């Protein structure tokens, strides 16, 4: 009898270890998306960029850390719920919403003219020397060229447009500049990345570098890559931008967060994007 119990305990313990092992690492898988224009393979795993060589060998898209069902949603554009929002963005792109009847299309023609832009954002604007995230460019069009009230940085209009513009660069390799004029912003972002915030005193790096692949309660910690953003989050049944995710992460450390679109989060976006140099833009991804 006693022996049976011991055996069972051993079996249970082994089961737990195996379950742990199954969770510990990103899933080996390949993302091929069934699009209207045929199949498109997305680079979701790549050698780490030079500036990260000391801390990791391989960078993985957050796609590898999600369950089978969630990953499958992204394999087919029809099943990807985020496409609804990109479509909505296209409607607004063509809508004559400006104070004098301007539309996005009246200056920029089709959204495909922005092919490649998402892969190099955030970047430093040559004229002003300011660090720009995509939201900044959209906002300057909305307020200066179209004469509208500013859009909310994390509002639906903004995120629909992010989704549309991001889709134009799907499959292109992220390559944000971290030298030259971008360097001071990048250094600032890096410093913030390793700074502990909040009552829990956690830095970005504590979860996404030191413990990636581990579980934090029910969540499988990824590397915190943003090549998939904006992303459709099943939990919210809606789009989430990188800026919004940063607010969520810092809030979870029980800190007063920086605002979405603040200089701090823009610097973090540049730094985090640079950690994904080598992964492909996923257009609009699906996460849970």
């Amino acid at each position, binding site marked *: 009898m006693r022996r049976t119990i011991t055996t069972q305990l051993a079996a249970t313990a082994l089961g737990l270890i195996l379950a742990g092992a199954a969770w510990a690492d990103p899933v080996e898988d390949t993302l091929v998306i069934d699009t209207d224009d045929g199949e498109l393979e997305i680079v979701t795993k790549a050698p780490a960029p030079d500036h990260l060589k000391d801390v990791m060998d391989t960078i993985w898209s957050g796609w590898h850390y999600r369950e089978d069902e969630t990953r499958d949603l992204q394999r087919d554009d*029809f*099943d990807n*719920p985020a*496409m*609804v929002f990109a*479509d*909505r963005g296209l*409607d607004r792109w063509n809508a004559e919403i400006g104070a004098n009847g301007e539309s996005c299309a009246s200056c920029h023609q089709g959204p495909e003219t922005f092919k490649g832009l998402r892969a190099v954002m955030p970047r430093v604007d040559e004229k002003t020397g300011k660090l720009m995230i995509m939201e900044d460019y959209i906002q300057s069009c909305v307020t200066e060229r179209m004469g509208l009230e500013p859009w909310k940085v994390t509002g639906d209009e903004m995120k629909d447009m992010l989704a549309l513009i991001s889709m134009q660069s799907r499959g292109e390799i992220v390559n944000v500049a971290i030298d030259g004029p971008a360097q001071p912003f990048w250094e600032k972002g890096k410093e913030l990345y390793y700074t502990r915030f909040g009552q829990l005193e956690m830095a970005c790096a504590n979860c996404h570098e030191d413990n990636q692949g581990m579980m934090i309660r029910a969540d499988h910690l990824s590397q915190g890559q943003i090549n998939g953003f904006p992303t459709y989050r099943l939990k919210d*049944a809606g789009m989430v931008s990188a800026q919004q995710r940063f607010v969520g992460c810092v809030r979870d450390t029980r800190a007063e967060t920086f605002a979405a679109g603040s200089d701090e989060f823009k610097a973090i976006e540049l730094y985090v994007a640079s950690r994904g140099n080598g992964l492909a833009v996923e257009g609009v991804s699906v996460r849970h």
Partner: protein
Amino acid sequence: MASDSKPRVKVPKSASAGEVVTIKALISHKMESGQRKDADGNLIPRSIINRFTCDLNGQNVVDVAIDPAVSTNPYFEFDAKVDAAGEFKFTWYDDDGDVYEDTQSIEIA
């Protein structure tokens, strides 16, 4: 709601005669159930798509009655037997009287 609702359908471009094909149809719609309250405690009126139909060459394939428990952006996947080339017609009926339509043709390979 009409301006926000956008139908999307996926139909194979061709099929062999008599083949059963899978069709996917989705429409963006908030599907407000009529059970929820706003911040002031007032009931938010029901606003849903209440019926969805698909016809192939005038012959009905599915006719779905939709009730408030169906979630946002309703998505239907179903099979249809294709005997001849023709056109699928999809129709969604909104509570507010709007009707959204989409069509997709299929060839016999």
